[in-house]
């Protein structure tokens, strides 16, 4: 599996430049102290993984990977794990810098940092969990469009729903869960998502 | 050891290899007890398939020119040159017999036949 992780990381080498530019923009915004876009960084790592899926598809890597020992299974494992590593690492980097900047502006608020880090990790993990099985099932192009439609349509749907119904009770139930509980729930969802992906890939023809 | 293969010849490649090795044995360019190149390395060097060189060697074994010692390879056998040459003479007789038959069918005289033989023999000599 290590080989597959290496492959995905090497493939992102070029995109790291884009990430660096984003990081500079982020610093710019953060120094101002008015706008916090740090939650975007872990999300970006999910986007980076998406680009590796695109490259894989372009060169029909999947057929080749089937012929590598345990290729089907390890390929999926590696994608999930690489993404997880990227999300956690980027979240850690952001929190590290946030602490420094806030300290610099002498308005250190550890609670605030903790909240946005957890929020962004939750968001990214959720995205990973729903995206990957759909990519394996429908291919990267269709999945990308599909996901945007789900997010876009979902938002509209929820907005309309909240106008008609009182969604307060559901939201407050969710709020009673502490962040640890949500994280555990998400890891569970991720595990299910992983098994669905493995199942899809083991049956698939390339 | 030189072996020349012609891809355009109508003689099968395995036969070309076989005949050339045979000639080398008869002319004592290859001597008894000498190890021949392996089937695979010969195939590689001649750029032909393994099955072709294998065929050639198997035929040579059958005809008694070489022997296969398992795990070691193919060796040139000690052959009785007189018998071998006898065999060749026998082949020549067969060919001439055919030539004579054909000549008689077409009413070609013995003298003409001899002349043809002389001419061909001299021509081949020059070519050597």
């Amino acid at each position, binding site marked *: 599996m290590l080989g597959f992780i290496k492959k995905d990381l*090497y493939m992102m080498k070029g995109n790291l430049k884009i990430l660096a530019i984003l990081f500079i923009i982020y610093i710019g915004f953060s120094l101002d102290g008015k706008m916090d876009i740090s939650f975007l960084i872990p999300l970006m790592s999910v986007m980076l993984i998406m680009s590796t899926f695109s490259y894989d598809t372009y060169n*029909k890597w*999947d057929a080749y990977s089937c012929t590598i020992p345990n290729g089907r299974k390890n390929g999926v494992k590696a994608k999930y794990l690489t993404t997880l590593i990227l999300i956690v690492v980027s979240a850690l980097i952001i929190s590290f810098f946030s602490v420094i900047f806030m300290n610099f502006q002498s308005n250190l608020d550890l609670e605030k940092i903790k909240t946005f880090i957890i929020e962004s990790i939750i968001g990214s993990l959720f995205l990973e969990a729903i995206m990957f099985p759909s990519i394996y099932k429908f291919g990267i192009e269709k999945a990308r469009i599909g996901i945007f439609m789900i997010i876009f349509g979902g938002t509209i749907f929820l907005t309309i729903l909240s106008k008609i119904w009182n969604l307060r009770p559901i939201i407050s139930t969710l709020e009673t869960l502490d962040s640890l509980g949500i994280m555990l729930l998400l890891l569970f969802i991720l595990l299910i998502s992983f098994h669905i992906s493995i199942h899809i890939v083991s049956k698939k023809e390339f | 050891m030189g072996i020349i293969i012609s891809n*355009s010849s109508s003689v099968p490649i*395995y036969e070309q290899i076989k005949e050339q090795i045979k000639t080398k044995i008869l002319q004592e360019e290859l001597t008894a007890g000498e190890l021949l190149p392996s089937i695979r390395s010969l195939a590689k060097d001649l750029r032909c398939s393994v099955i*072709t060189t294998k065929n050639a060697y198997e035929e040579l074994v059958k005809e008694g020119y070489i022997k296969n010692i398992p795990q070691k390879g193919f060796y040139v056998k000690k052959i009785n040159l007189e018998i071998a040459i006898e065999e060749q003479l026998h082949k020549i007789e067969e060919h001439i017999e055919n030539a004579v038959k054909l000549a008689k069918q077409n009413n070609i005289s013995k003298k003409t036949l001899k002349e043809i033989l002389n001419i061909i023999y001299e021509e081949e000599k020059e070519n050597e």
Partner: protein
Amino acid sequence: MNNALEVINLSKKQGDFELKNISFELPKGMILGFIGENGAGKTTTMKAILNIIKKDSGTIKILGKEKNFEEEVGIVLDDSFFPEILTPHDINKIMKSMYKTWDEKMYEKYLKEFNLPKKKEVKTFSKGMRKKLEIITAIAHHPKLLLLDEPTQGLDPIARNEVIKLLQEFIETGENSVLLSSHITTDLEHLADYIIFINKGEVILDKTIDEILDQFGIAKCSQEELEKIEKKDCMKIYKKKYECEILVENKKEFQKKYKGITMDKISLDDLMLLMIKGEK
């Protein structure tokens, strides 16, 4: 175990196309050439052997095993490889973690021999360079069986020669075997021991190369002469404007029986053409 590869009654339906009961074997130490038109089922067969697509029925044994053979098999696929933003250097590091037997030294030796830059992205490579890299990558973990789909495609004659030499070196010990498909049949004439010819998803010929090149022949005759020839002596008949070509399975016997008919040597190209275009 004397066969490197055994395919028994392999069947697979894929849309309109169907592989029908494909059976053949590749003895250890030999090279088997796969020929056939584009779309005849060569790639589909290769993919089914490698489990890239799932077979409907049949048995496949690679080195005696029905699964977990990947470590001992090297492959070149027609159009599937590492993403092209990687470099040969990246591929080396990745493969080192993929195969226990990956031979870094051998890989780098061949990169040098084939003049492939180590640190340039594969997308800057020409088609021929890519194929060479794919072949080197397939061979560098010391597989016992190589499965190559069109390995000489896009290569110039010199590079093709290099590849042929590489494959002959690969089988020289007698332990390794190769299955390759190629539409450049002259490559196979110099290399393959066995020829499998597939057409429309079926094996229509399974012979050694010597059987084909030494025994098969093309008889050429006029329409009138054709009428005197018994149908059972003709494998295929291809009528052209001025002459008829007959694919003959045993040219010596044919010549004995029908004196005076021109008999030509056969090439794999002629064979393919006559098998497909000729009538019975």
